[in-house]
């Protein structure tokens, strides 16, 4: 049964925003209460009545929603495309004891309708966009300016700008272009009291007191609801060559990457371990060697560098005993097809997995520590007798460990959580971190605590809680996410 | 807001009951294209139209009629009047100008001509030709569909048919992919006329026509599901026309919006407009190869300066 507060809030919102922007239809609610990390969790049928969905068309709608939420003290869950991998954008969350919980009531604010590209300024190399714009759509629009937005999470086709800022997304080009925090210049947002703020600048250089705009990177909606963002753009690389190489073991692939990098910084450097390569071969029906794969993208400064780059990569790869090498340079392989092989990593694991669910961990270590990290993961695998498959962004040390799991089986879930914790500790010992680009959400609150303890900085949580309180004194914005409760 | 679905479904089902096709068009409308062609009735190989092309002008009008009721809440049947099928037959058929009917009958005559040039011997079932039932499947009317499919296959058997040449993607899809799940097809072979022409491409005297620019629209089912993509291009290539591929082409083609015409005519039209404008940015002359695509691109492209041709209309020109 829905509470009076929910019913009243619904009526208020209908009046303020109109029926096209508000819904309490259980089916429509059902589409928005889960994200890509909680989709498997079933709510009881009657619970669907406890939520309201708001689809704002503009900033005014957002302000009205926050005011209504404040009036009835109902939590707000801001969301973009609901692809959070850390249980950050639905009504289901994990508490500090790692038990599933659902918010008793909530107003879900889905921002996908606010998807206008407000302004593209090619001379200034910036774009001003609403939060619902999808990264791929922005890039399509930017094509005619020969500019692009370089943050390329594997989910770029679906990920929204607002969501990418909120999770601090990175992706394949991390080594060369960093993450979201390097590309957000300014934002507008509505805070927990319904006040509109505009922070940051239209310029690269900007000293506007404390850097509030970047505070939003990775904040997952707990500080405010983003209604606009000013993003930095970059000229589209003109001549990019792609190499796909296969090696007998991880170290050969790793060393090849390091040696190539010492001669030329790649745009992209991706690694996929042998067992995943086998899965890709099987699910795509390709004849790839059962070996460790390295994908490297290199941008040519001048077209006549072609021969030189070709020679450099071949030399380094040969030195480390490459088994097979394919490139888009000699014209025998299609540029996109080579990428597809890497792109098929996640789909192939999904299709070949033996348990119902797949968890992609998000640890990161400095590039120099990657070999040790891989060793640790192998040891953890052995200890638990579970496969931990490694593949991802070699270039920035963010190899995603993939663990299969049956999340509906408490014992198996516990085991997966233990493995995740072990991997996280290993990353910490190697000067790394527990989350590189997926965010903390509620799934990784315990890991965040682990990290801060490890760094003797647990009291930093007090600062985070204090900041949260200033932005959102009544704790209505995505409560229970990112910042562990006291 | 789409139309009240049970109204749409019962309207279509009633037409199926009374006339054997979803729009309730007359048998004459379906078979008149073949008059004077001297096609045998039945035979081992038949040309199977499923009355799809013949219905194009009616689909356009029927959908425009439905569109008026969209957003007006339920009770469509009451609003249109009790005798829905008579509204469609009498009123709306009368309003389809003869030249429009002639055009789509002409498409079929063109296909027949091309097949003959290719040396393919085929018959036709005339008034005994059943509708494929594809819409019944798409609407989720499983019981009606599976019984209908059995009757269709029985009809083919009765006339000694072994090979069916289909002319549109929806019929091809439902016969080739869905029927086998519901009925025993035995040794019945289903082939699309484009594949058939391509098989005998060298027999057809195709020669160059005036160098105009056309853009090509791949039907979703044909390209993505049946993977018939290159044969039509190779056929067109013999005509030396300037064929442009839109960005969304081949397996990446974008739907014309047609399949929604009976459920949500407005959204269907919007999608038709999106696709028609996209195609128009490449060339104002568009080659399509599906009656549903043609009817919806016509609807969506009403106020655009475009011309939509069926593939066969272009091929026939090259065949002199």
């Amino acid at each position: 049964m829905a509470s009076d507060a929910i019913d009243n809030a619904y009526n208020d919102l209908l009046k303020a925003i109109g029926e096209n922007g508000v819904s309490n239809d259980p089916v429509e609610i059902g589409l928005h209460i889960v994200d890509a990390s909680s989709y498997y969790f079933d709510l009881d049928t009657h619970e669907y009545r406890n939520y309201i969905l708001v689809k704002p068309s503009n900033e005014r709608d957002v302000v009205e929603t926050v005011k209504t939420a404040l009036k009835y003290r109902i939590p707000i869950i801001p969301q973009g495309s609901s692809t959070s991998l850390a249980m950050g954008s639905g009504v289901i969350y994990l508490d500090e004891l790692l038990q599933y919980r659902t918010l008793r009531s909530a107003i879900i604010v889905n921002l996908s309708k606010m998807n206008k590209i407000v302004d593209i300024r090619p001379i200034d190399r910036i774009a001003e966009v609403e939060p619902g714009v999808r990264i791929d759509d922005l890039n399509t629009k930017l094509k005619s300016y020969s500019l692009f937005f370089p943050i390329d999470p594997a989910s770029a086709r679906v990920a929204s700008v607002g969501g990418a800022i909120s999770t601090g997304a990175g992706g394949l080009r991390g080594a060369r272009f960093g993450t979201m925090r390097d590309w957000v210049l300014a934002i507008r947002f509505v805070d927990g009291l319904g006040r509109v703020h505009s922070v940051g600048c239209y310029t690269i250089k900007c000293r506007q007191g404390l850097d509030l705009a970047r505070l939003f990177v990775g904040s997952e909606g707990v500080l405010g609801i983003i209604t606009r963002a000013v993003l930095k753009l970059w000229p589209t690389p003109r001549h990019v060559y792609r190499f796909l190489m296969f090696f007998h073991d991880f170290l050969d692939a790793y060393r090849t990457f390091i040696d190539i990098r010492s001669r030329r910084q790649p745009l992209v450097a991706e690694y996929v371990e042998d067992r995943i390569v086998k899965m890709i071969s099987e699910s795509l029906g390709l004849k790839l060697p059962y070996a460790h794969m390295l994908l490297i993208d290199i941008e040519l400064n001048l077209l006549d560098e072609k021969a030189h780059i070709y020679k450099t990569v071949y030399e380094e790869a040969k030195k480390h005993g490459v088994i097979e090498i394919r490139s888009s340079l000699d014209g025998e392989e299609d540029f996109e097809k080579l990428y597809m092989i890497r792109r098929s990593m996640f789909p192939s694991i999904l299709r070949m997995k033996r348990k119902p669910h797949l968890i992609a961990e998000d640890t990161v270590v400095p590039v120099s520590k990657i070999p040790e990290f891989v060793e640790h993961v192998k040891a953890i695998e052995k200890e638990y007798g579970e496969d931990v498959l490694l593949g991802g962004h070699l270039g920035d040390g963010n190899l995603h460990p993939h663990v299969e799991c049956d999340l509906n089986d408490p014992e198996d879930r516990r085991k997966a959580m233990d493995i995740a914790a072990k991997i996280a500790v290993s990353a910490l010992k190697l000067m790394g971190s527990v989350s590189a680009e997926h965010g903390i959400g509620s799934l990784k609150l315990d890991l965040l605590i682990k990290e801060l303890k490890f760094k003797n900085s647990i009291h930093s949580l007090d600062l985070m809680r204090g900041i949260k309180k200033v932005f959102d004194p009544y704790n209505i914005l995505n409560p229970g996410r990112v910042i562990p409760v006291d | 807001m789409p139309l009240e679905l049970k109204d749409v479904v019962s309207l279509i089902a009633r037409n199926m009951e009374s006339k054997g096709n979803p729009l309730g068009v007359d048998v004459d409308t379906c078979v008149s294209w073949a008059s004077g062609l001297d096609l045998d009735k039945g035979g081992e190989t038949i040309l199977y139209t499923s009355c799809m092309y013949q219905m194009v002008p009616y689909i356009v009008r029927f959908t425009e009629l439905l569109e008026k009721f969209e957003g007006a809440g339920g009770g469509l049947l009451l609003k249109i009047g009790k005798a829905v099928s008579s509204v469609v037959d009498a009123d709306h058929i009368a309003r389809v100008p003869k030249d429009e009917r002639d055009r789509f009958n002409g498409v079929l005559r063109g296909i027949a001509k091309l097949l003959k040039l290719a040396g393919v011997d085929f018959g036709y079932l005339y008034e005994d030709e059943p509708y494929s039932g594809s819409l019944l499947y798409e609407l989720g009317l499983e019981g009606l569909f599976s019984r209908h499919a059995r009757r269709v296959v029985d009809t083919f058997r009765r006339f000694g048919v072994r090979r069916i040449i289909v002319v549109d993607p929806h019929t091809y899809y439902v016969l080739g992919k869905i029927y086998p799940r519901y009925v025993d097809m035995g040794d019945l072979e289903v082939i699309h006329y484009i594949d058939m022409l391509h098989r005998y491409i060298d027999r057809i005297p195709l020669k160059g026509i005036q160098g105009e620019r056309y853009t090509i629209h791949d039907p979703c089912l044909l390209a993505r599901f049946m993977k018939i993509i290159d044969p039509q291009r190779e056929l067109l290539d013999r005509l030396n026309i300037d064929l442009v591929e839109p960005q969304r082409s081949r397996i990446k083609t974008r739907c014309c919006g047609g399949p929604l015409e009976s459920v949500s005519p407005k959204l269907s039209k919007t999608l038709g407009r999106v696709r028609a404008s996209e195609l128009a940015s490449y060339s104002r002359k568009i080659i399509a190869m599906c009656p549903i695509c043609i009817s919806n691109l016509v609807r969506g492209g009403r106020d655009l300066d475009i011309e939509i041709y069926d593939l066969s209309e272009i091929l026939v020109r090259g065949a002199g």
Partner: protein
Amino acid sequence: MTENRNDPYRVAETEYSKCVFCGFCENTCPTLYSTGERGYGPRGRVRVVGLLLKGIVTPKTVEYLYTCLLCYACLKPCPAGVDIPKLVVAGRQLLTSKYKEQNSYIILKAEMMRLERADA
């Protein structure tokens, strides 16, 4: 023929259980492009069938499932290999069949049964 293989309930369950809610299918969908409403996209429709299986059905269920074009654009981008069009048709079949009557979620049922009787 093989009743089991066509059983809409089974088809729906099998296909639905593969979905991981990643949304990679979404940017190919023409109806999502024109409406911006999640239920008008493949990921939304897959979940609508999931909700249907649990007995959560409203007029929106019909709206979302019946506005699918069955154009197959979403099939290839799906990493989990969900046959979305097949799932959507199975969902429609559930809506129009007598299946699971006890859940009383068959909005179209009365009309369908009349038609079935007329056809038989």
